[in-house]
């Protein structure tokens, strides 16, 4: 289904390999269930060193994450749903192959004031 609810008639999204095959049947990660869609990941040195020996999807994530990538971008890159990307990223983070950079929010659940001020400065400079 697309952004505004048009039905996706491809059914399985046109994938040859089903999503569950990527994650050994797991749909939830022990650690990453709450990882937000905007969480940023970067490859660690250990991840870059290990990448050549990892499965293709893990390798693709690490290679893409030499610069910061959000969970959303990882999902788009691999053409998998967000939940699948979350499982893969969490596993790589647990193995210290990826560093995860989470949003900084205050006790009210909103971004901290100093971040909003930096964002405002950055937008005004555009």
């Amino acid at each position, binding site marked *: 289904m697309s*952004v505004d609810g048009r039905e996706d008639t491809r059914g399985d*999204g046109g994938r040859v390999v089903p999503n569950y095959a990527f994650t050994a049947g797991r749909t939830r990660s*022990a650690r990453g269930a709450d990882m937000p869609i905007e969480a940023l990941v970067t490859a660690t040195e250990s991840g870059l060193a290990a990448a050549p020996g990892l499965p293709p999807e893990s390798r693709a994530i690490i290679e893409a994450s030499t610069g910061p990538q959000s969970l959303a971008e990882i999902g788009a890159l691999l053409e998998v749903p967000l939940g699948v990307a979350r499982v893969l990223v969490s596993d790589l983070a647990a193995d210290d192959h990826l560093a995860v950079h989470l949003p900084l929010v205050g006790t009210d659940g909103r971004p901290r004031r100093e971040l909003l001020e930096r964002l*405002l400065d950055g937008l005004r400079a555009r």
Partner: protein
Amino acid sequence: MVSVHGDHAADGGLVRAGAKAAQAELLPLKILVAGGFGVGKTTLVGALSEIPPLSTEQEMTSLSEGIDDTSAVPDKTTTTVAMDFGRVTVDDALVLYLFGTPGQSRFWFMWDELARGAVGAVILVDLRRIDECFAAVDYFENRGVPFVVALNDFPGTEGVDDDAVRDALAVPPGCPLVHVDARDGTSCTAALISLVEHALAEAA
């Protein structure tokens, strides 16, 4: 400095110590772009984004039961909802993501996850189809998520009185109402600036 950020850091060591200092400072932010079908959400995201808008998918599971007719595909119990999104690198550490959110009320469960921790929302309005954004105004107001109402100035909507729009949409006092050309980056950036100023005022 270790790369532990925010109140998620305690939930299982997702974030590792020892990353390079430059990486440790990275901080994501997000703004939601809401509005009805065809109002220009993806156009606005594309006008601001440094990458061509991407699409991410989320599987919709049991909540869709009884709503979606899956009888034509009996083996399929989930539907996939896609969201277009874009990216704006704000400075050397802040990365802003813009998510175009599905408009229909049956996707509100997705909005809850998306709205958590968001800077706020831009509700994009086509004045010719104003009814499509009532739900979004209600949603963000009830959740206490800062928002601005952005009128996408389509041909044929010139000369509309802003106060009349405010009344029609029951836009709360203090909530900015701006005009945008969703194709124009400068115009869309101005809308984001209004939103962030409003979020700061609300946070005060």
